[in-house]
């Protein structure tokens, strides 16, 4: 069970050049809108045709430009959950789900599968409802049920939670995680929400302007994003130019401080990244006196904006998200554990 994608496609000024690979995992495509994530899914589904390249799913070639293979979407066995769920408005829940197994001719098998999926997605009693009579979460479950009854070899989710309100979102993400575990085959998920990606994906591929910046396991990516873009896309708030000064030491001229790292620093270091959650007033590592500029109160934490004493005036304030019970006291001194100093290259 594996997916291999290596495709290129030109769209006006936009050039999509994507190479990803996954084995029985949940792979997240994380990137800003317009970065080519959805286009990649469309190419895999066969809705769009790449200019060149290859798409291979479980050893079956779905697309190969050189061999002139281009299976129609109907033959690819790829489940595609659209952002708006794309339920057929003229059909009720039952008819919508039956559309997913129109290839099955045996009536009793059909009814059996239908009953099973309705139970799994907790949609019993809604068979006769039309899509517009359902809540966003129910619509999503109908769309998933409709896909799963066709037992696809790959499941693709396009921003699956963007149409839902934030309260529902977190709960459905947990439900979805269970569902994906049960599905047990390769899953591709497109998202611009890094929390969502972190919750659901084993691996993450960062997409920026049609290119894959990096593909790594989720934890490794957040722990060591390696590049400026990757640090930004994983939500790193404080990024500044830096110079290598030792095997485990770097200097940040604009902040006027030296920092020690846990990761060995390679040649070619250009910047350092420090996540807003990772400052600490109790650690003695990388500890320097700072000047508080502003404290912004949020529901469960405060944003403590500060500057180092020697900090260049033309650089932005540094952000620190502090839990309310951990607020530092003046005179302020802030430290950073070495494993939280992210060396960035390129």
């Amino acid at each position, binding site marked *: 069970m594996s997916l291999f994608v290596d495709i290129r496609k030109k769209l006006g000024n936009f050039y999509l050049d994507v190479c990803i690979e996954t084995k029985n995992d949940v792979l997240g495509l994380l990137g800003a809108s317009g970065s080519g994530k959805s286009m990649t899914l469309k190419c895999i589904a066969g809705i769009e045709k790449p200019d060149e390249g290859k798409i291979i799913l479980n050893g079956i070639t779905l697309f190969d430009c050189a061999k002139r293979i281009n299976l129609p979407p*109907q033959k690819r066995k790829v489940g595609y959950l659209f952002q708006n769920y794309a339920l057929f408005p003229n059909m009720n829940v039952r008819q919508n789900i039956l559309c997913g197994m129109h290839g099955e001719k045996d009536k009793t098998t059909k009814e059996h599968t239908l009953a099973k999926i309705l139970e799994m997605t907790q949609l019993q009693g809604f068979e006769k409802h039309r899509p517009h009579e359902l809540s966003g979460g129910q619509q999503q479950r109908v769309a998933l049920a409709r896909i799963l009854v066709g037992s696809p070899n790959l499941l693709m989710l396009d921003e699956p939670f963007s149409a839902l309100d934030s309260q529902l979102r977190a709960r459905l993400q947990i439900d979805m995680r269970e569902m994906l575990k049960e599905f047990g085959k390769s899953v591709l998920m497109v998202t611009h929400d890094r929390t969502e990606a972190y919750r659901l994906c084993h691996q993450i591929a960062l997409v920026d302007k049609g290119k894959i910046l990096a593909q790594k396991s989720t934890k490794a990516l957040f722990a060591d994003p390696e590049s400026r873009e990757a640090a930004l896309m994983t939500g790193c708030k404080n990024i500044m130019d830096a110079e290598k000064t030792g095997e485990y030491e770097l200097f940040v001229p604009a902040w006027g401080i030296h920092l020690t790292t846990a990761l060995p620093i390679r040649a070619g270091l250009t910047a350092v990244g420090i996540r807003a959650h990772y400052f600490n007033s109790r650690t003695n590592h990388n500890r320097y006196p700072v000047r508080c500029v502003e404290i912004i109160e949020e529901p469960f934490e405060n944003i403590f904006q500060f500057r180092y004493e020697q900090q260049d005036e033309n650089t932005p304030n540094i952000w620190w998200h502090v839990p309310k019970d951990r607020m530092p006291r003046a005179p302020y001194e802030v430290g950073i554990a070495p494993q939280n100093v992210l060396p960035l290259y390129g």
Partner: protein
Amino acid sequence: MDMFPLLNSLRVAALSSVIVFFLGIFAAFYVSKLNRIAKGIVDVLLTLPLVLPPTVIGYFLIITVGARRPIGMFLGEFGIRFVMTWYGGVLAAVVIAFPLMYRTARGAFESFDETLAYSGKTLGLSNSYIFWKIRMPYCRQGILAGLVLAFARALGEFGATVMLIGYTPGRTATISTTVYHLWRIGDDSGALRWVMINLCISAVVLLAVNMLERKNKRAVIR
């Protein structure tokens, strides 16, 4: 009273509506997928009959399918004659009513959410299933409106019809040509009778449309 004009009008309008329905839908479907420039050009050509005077269309039809014209002669070989026959009336009505069906259907198709078709394809549904069971029901309102407009236009067709098939009582007479003929020979009461019949048909058609729409709405609410 000779009821031939009523029967003839109805069969001409019904037959041409059926033809226009399919022609219009397929033209609309394919044009809505064209790129912008090609769409502009094809659109002008297909909509032209709507803005040209019907007599001009009639003229074009005569010089195309007339008995001594190449196409007319070719069709004559198979015994098909459009001049002075009732199915010539169908041809005229089709050409005149086509743009109404085509334009309304195209508007409906362009408002279709294409992701529905995409999701249908990834679910393994055939293209014809998607077209007839998903796209058509989604665009039902617009298509129905186009069909009604086309039927009404075909029923009332006069200019092109009279040029191509003239007025022969019992053979090519339609309601509209009969009204004109009776009025011209001074039979005002005869003309009025046919006017009233025409009014009744139009009212019935509009009533049917309204009832259909209400039924659709109820189906959605349920």
